[in-house]
Each structure stands twice: as structure tokens, then as C-alpha cells.
């Protein structure tokens, strides 16, 4: 196999297509799904619904898989979901130290930082230092809960709803919710505050 990964991937694809084992259009469809259809906007809808609808939030925290399925999300790498709630006294952070497990149906594919050795190694021993690198300085009295995705459960952080957004519509709320906030690596803030992710 060539040493350049691009050539290696191409060689492997053409070999498998030539052998009749792979339908290149299926590859296109898979890529298209994760580039254009499945991403953090899905998770944002779940979060916004939980913020607007207390009964939904209760269901989400009790049985996330079922509650998320209500909005039509689930499947590959989100078969078994757990939602954990951030509060003024509890901050949740999700990691997968052993590989890079991530809730695809709600957040899409994981970003490079989530897959990095730096994040995988440090999130469990120095979560406050990690959060600081994301610009989040937590007060000592806030409890940090790190969720290591060692099994087939996938975690969604339900961020705190920012002050002054009670009157926004579910759609407007969803537009505020960032990927990082749903991993626990950020907070949801109003647009003026500006937050990447």
C-alpha cells in the first residue's frame, strides 16, 4: 500500500469496487449523509425542545433514546443514548478515552480535538484544565462530571439555557446551541457573546 493515506484509501476503494464488494454510490451516500444531513443541528433540536417543553425534558433525562427518537433521530452510534443535564452546580463533559465514541445521530462525526490524544488523555484527569483551554473557567464549587464512553452508551450534554431566552421560539433556541456545548466543552451563550463550535 502507498504511504500517502490518500493514495492508500483510493487504492483500497478501487480494489474493493473492482472485486464487486463496494458500491461507490453507497460511499457517496454515506459521505453525503454525514456532510449534509446528520450534524449538531439535530442535537440542537433536542436541546431546544427540552428547554421549551418540561415534560419532554423529563422524558429525555429518563430515557434519552426514546425521547430523541420522538424527533426522528437515532441509529448508527446513537442506538443507546443518555442525556446529562448541566445546572448552575453541575457541569458535564463527555469523552471516550479508549477510542472516540460520539453520538453520531445528534452531533455528526466527531471533531479532530475530540479524537485527539490530548483530549482523550486529559479529560478524565484534568477536566477543569481542559475546559479552561475551551475558555470555560468553572468555579470551584461547580461539580465536574466526566462521562467516559467506554460502552455502547452515547452521551448528550443538555446545556444550561442562557438567561433572557425564555421568549425565543424552539427554532431560535436551536440556532444558539453549539456542538461544543452538547459535548460539555462550552456553554450556550447569546449570539452577541460569540462562541465557536
Amino acid at each position, binding site marked *: *500500500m*502507498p504511504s500517502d*493515506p*490518500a493514495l*492508500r*484509501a*483510493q487504492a483500497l*476503494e478501487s*480494489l*474493493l469496487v473492482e*472485486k*464487486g*464488494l*463496494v*458500491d461507490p*454510490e*453507497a*460511499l457517496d*451516500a*454515506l*459521505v453525503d*449523509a*454525514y*456532510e449534509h444531513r*446528520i*450534524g449538531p443541528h439535530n442535537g440542537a433540536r433536542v436541546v431546544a425542545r427540552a428547554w421549551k417543553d418540561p415534560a419532554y425534558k423529563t422524558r429525555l433525562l429518563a430515557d434519552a433514546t426514546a425521547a430523541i427518537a420522538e424527533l426522528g433521530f*437515532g*441509529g*448508527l452510534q446513537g*442506538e*443507546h443514548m443518555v442525556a446529562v443535564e448541566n445546572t448552575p452546580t453541575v457541569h458535564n463533559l463527555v469523552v471516550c*478515552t*479508549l*477510542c*472516540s465514541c460520539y453520538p453520531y445521530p445528534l452531533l455528526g*462525526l466527531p471533531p*479532530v*480535538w475530540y*479524537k*485527539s*490524544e*490530548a*483530549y482523550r*488523555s*486529559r479529560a*478524565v*484527569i484534568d477536566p*477543569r484544565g*481542559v475546559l479552561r*483551554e*475551551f475558555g470555560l473557567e468553572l468555579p470551584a464549587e461547580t461539580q*465536574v*462530571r*466526566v462521562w467516559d464512553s*467506554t*460502552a*455502547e*452508551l452515547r452521551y448528550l450534554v443538555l446545556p444550561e439555557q442562557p438567561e433572557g431566552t425564555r421568549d425565543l421560539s424552539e427554532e431560535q433556541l436551536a440556532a444558539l446551541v453549539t456542538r461544543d456545548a452538547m459535548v460539555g466543552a462550552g456553554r450556550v451563550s447569546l449570539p452577541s457573546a460569540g462562541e*465557536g*463550535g
Partner: protein
Amino acid sequence: MNGVHDMGGMHGMGPIQPEPHEPVFHHRWEARAFALVRAMGAFGRWNIDASRHQRELIPGPEYLRMTYYERWLAGLAALLLRHGFVSREELAAGKSVMACEALAPQMPATPALRAADVPAFIARGSPAARASNAPARFEQGQRVRARNLNPVGHTRLPRYVRGKCGIIDRVHGVFVFPDTNAHFQGECPQHVYSVLFEAQELWGEGFASGDAVYVDLWESYLDAA
């Protein structure tokens, strides 16, 4: 196995570097590698645990040198070889050397995943929970100790919790057991628990009291404590 993949609690892996407006894939080959892994996985000749373990088997120095999707490519190539989908010569040449059937008589000659089936494939996923009447050995609030297991094979018991005490936070239900499934020794379903470990129990005095790490662990990883 105690590989470098089991890196929870390590120092010295450099800074975390979030990338604003990060694309889903940074290179076209990453997208193709991701899709190839999924499309070949659809044959069902291996399972997700075997697939993870194959990537863990990449020697430590190489594992750390590779990017995420390079590991996926390396793992896929190894699985294809091992399960008779391709030969070593074909991998080297990047093209078919002989008919697939010649290698493995049972080998399919049509794709397992068609473009039209992709939405259903994604929506279905691959649930790892299993119906079971087995009673859970532990209950919420119970104190447990993660066993000190150091198998050379696949495990999802990270080193940093071994020997440490925690509290059962929730009982997730019964799931396929990776330690056997990765080696094609059966699904051997077991209860999985979310176990709360205090940061001070994991890392010692001086760490933030109250902070905790929740780790999903199979029943046979745990002893009552």
C-alpha cells in the same frame, strides 16, 4: 490490552486545539475511508468490537503517529485481509489479483450496502443491547471495585479505574460483552453499569473533591466492595 489507545489520565499529549468552523472531513480520502469502513462492515463478517480491537493492535508508536482516519484505514486493511476479502498481494498492488472466490469460497461477489439502502442502514444502526432476564448483580448506590484485569486481548475496562472503588450510578441494561465479541468468542451479554468514581479516588489527594468520572463498565469488570 494495555495499549497506548488506553490513554485516560496520561500527560504529555500536547495542547487541545479546537478548530473553528471545522469541516466534517479535512480531506476527500478521509470521507472515503470512513465510508469504506461502514460499507465493508455491512457484510457482518466482523463486529464493532473486533473493528476497535484491530485498530488497537496497531503498534503504539505507529498508533500515535497516525491520524484518526489513518488508523481506520489500517484497521480496515487488516480486517479485509484476515477475513479473506482481499489478499496481501492485492493490498500491495491496489488491484484484484485473482477472483475473490479463489481466496475464500464463501466470499460474496455483490456489495453488502447499496446506495439506496444507506438511509435505512444508518437509521437502523447496530444495537448492542440484548434481551435478557438475567438479574443485575449490582444496584444503584452500591459500592463496587473495578477489578485489576490486564488481558492481552480486547477490553473496555480502562487502566485508570482498575483497582479503584466507585458507586453504581445507573444500571444500563444488558449488552454484548466486547472482551469476547472482539475475538469472535460470542456475544456473552452482561449487565452494564455507569460507575461513579470520585476524582480523588482515581487520582489521589489534591484533586477537586466532588468532581467525578462516570465510566460504563460490564458486570464482570466489577466486584462488590
